[in-house]
């Protein structure tokens, strides 16, 4: 992968969680204005990679650079303030706050930008009706929509999303695919972890595949989507079974 235009770059990143060595030298480049898929089997280290980028786990070796500047030693709030939005795996909403309050948490002191709010609500109209409802009372799909909405309610330089389709119905997954396709039109840089290969193929520009705490393949998503043998080799799946 040509990473000359990389907004985010990981070089030889190792992460230990307690006495467990999870990441074994991750090399990854996320290019500006592109949607990069991070794929891999369960336990490959995808979520740990995202959490390490966000400073939620500390890297034990290697470099993480955002827009050319090292961020590996920064605290999570400082990383977020660089314009990196993170949607964690388990629908990272605050269930005891309302939809409105969840979104307000991610805005600046001036509150909502009306035009931006309309754009975001345009992506997920279902949230409009739930504006003053407790976020905990939303369906799984709506919670995921809220989590993504909160990540983009302010302009961000990089959006990191961890398995947004996990446990969701096919209709909701399609809604999320449409939302990501529309987000791509705004040239938002996105790093997306996903198990659903149909979604990955639908929205991904680039792909990096992880196995055993390393990136074992990086390239164009279209190339991987077209190469069934490579899919089987890297992911142990066939495209036909994920149509």
């Amino acid at each position: 992968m040509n990473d000359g235009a990389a907004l985010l770059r990981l070089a030889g990143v190792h992460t230990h969680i307690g006495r467990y060595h999870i990441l074994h030298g991750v090399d990854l480049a996320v290019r500006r204005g592109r949607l990069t898929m991070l794929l891999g089997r369960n336990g490959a280290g995808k979520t740990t990679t995202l959490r390490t980028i966000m400073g939620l786990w500390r890297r034990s070796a290697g470099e993480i650079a955002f827009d050319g500047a090292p961020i590996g030693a920064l605290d999570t709030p400082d990383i977020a303030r660089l314009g990196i939005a993170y949607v964690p795996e388990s629908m990272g909403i605050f269930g005891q706050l309302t939809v409105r309050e969840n979104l307000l948490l991610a805005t600046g002191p001036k509150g909502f930008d009306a035009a931006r709010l309309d754009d975001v609500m345009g992506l997920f109209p279902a949230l409009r009706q739930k504006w003053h409802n407790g976020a905990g009372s939303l369906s799984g799909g709506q919670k995921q929509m809220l989590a993504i909405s909160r990540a983009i309610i302010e302009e961000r330089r990089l959006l990191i999303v961890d398995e947004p389709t996990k446990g969701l119905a096919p209709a909701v997954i399609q809604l999320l695919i449409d939302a990501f396709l529309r987000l791509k039109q705004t040239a938002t840089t996105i790093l997306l972890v996903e198990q659903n290969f149909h979604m990955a193929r639908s929205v991904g520009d680039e792909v990096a595949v992880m196995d055993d705490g390393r990136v074992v393949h990086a390239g164009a998503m279209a190339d991987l989507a077209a190469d069934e043998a490579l899919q089987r080799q890297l992911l142990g799946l066939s495209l036909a079974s994920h149509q």
Partner: protein
Amino acid sequence: MRRGAGRRPLDWLLSGDRPGGRVLSLLLLAVLLGLAFAPFLFPGTRPLGVAARICIFIVLAASYDIMLGYTGIASFAHTMFFGMGAYGVAIALAKLPVGWDAVLLGAAAGVALAALVAILIGLLSLRVRAIFFSMITLAVASFALILATELRDLTGGEDGLTFSVPRLLTPGFRLAAEPVLGVRLDGRLVTYYLIFVLSLALFLAMLRIVNSPFGRVLQAIRENEFRAEALGYRTLVYRTLAGALSAALAALAGAMMALLLRYNGPAVTLSFDVMVDILLMVVIGGMGTLYGPVLGAVVLVMAEYYLQPAMAALSRSLAGWPVLPVLFHPDRWLLWLGVLFVLIVYFFPAGIVGSLRRQAR
């Protein structure tokens, strides 16, 4: 979608945080009116003292709720901050010429010390796991209790300090020669209304704080600290600020207690019994609601003052029955208070306010 435009005065006053539900609203209105007209509805020194204590404990328990209910931090040092405010006023009035400047100076010193100590505790220990933080606060509170007992020259030791208050607050002061509606307008009444107005103002201010962007962040931190950090919030700073704010408010409650009693000692404001009372008020009333501590304070203070006489009356009326008069003997009031709490927690697991709100939905 926007709610803020054209807000009604009540919404403005309550910061848009209405109690929720008719029963709860009526209960809170009854408490407000009961306290506002307590001197006229329940004449006498004892009922007035009970009403004043309810006001003070509403502030104290609500300020603790900012820590426990809104931020998710279990601290056992809240009585220490309560004591700092009380000792601030007590020492100032005992050592300086009696006057409002001494009251203000003592209260300000108590509030400042409480906020400073809370910031230090927060910065030094909020990074550790919740249970260790709780243990640290317990140790610090115990240390403060020992310190207050040992520094006899300053605090009066275990005997505490008895002091005079400004003339306006003394029982001998007369606002008017003739009683109004049968109530003497004396310094006790002035003291009560000073406490009532201050408590109401502080409660409304707390409502404003928890419904502000700052309060929203506290609630987010309570729910998931890591998610809040991933949104760019320095959780340690927010939690420390919440602790300092909560401590300052507790110190103000302590200052009011000192003015009410014209005495302060370790047993009154620093003992672990007071801490247990605060915890019970918040849990029984409902955590994370602010209205919960209001009802919790009413239930607990009333129970502490009136359960024993009520049991005495019940025991007398059951004379001649087997076992029952002994069971309801006033000496067993603590047993029944415990039973009452168990029942409340069993039937209202989310606290009185939480349960009433759930029913109202």
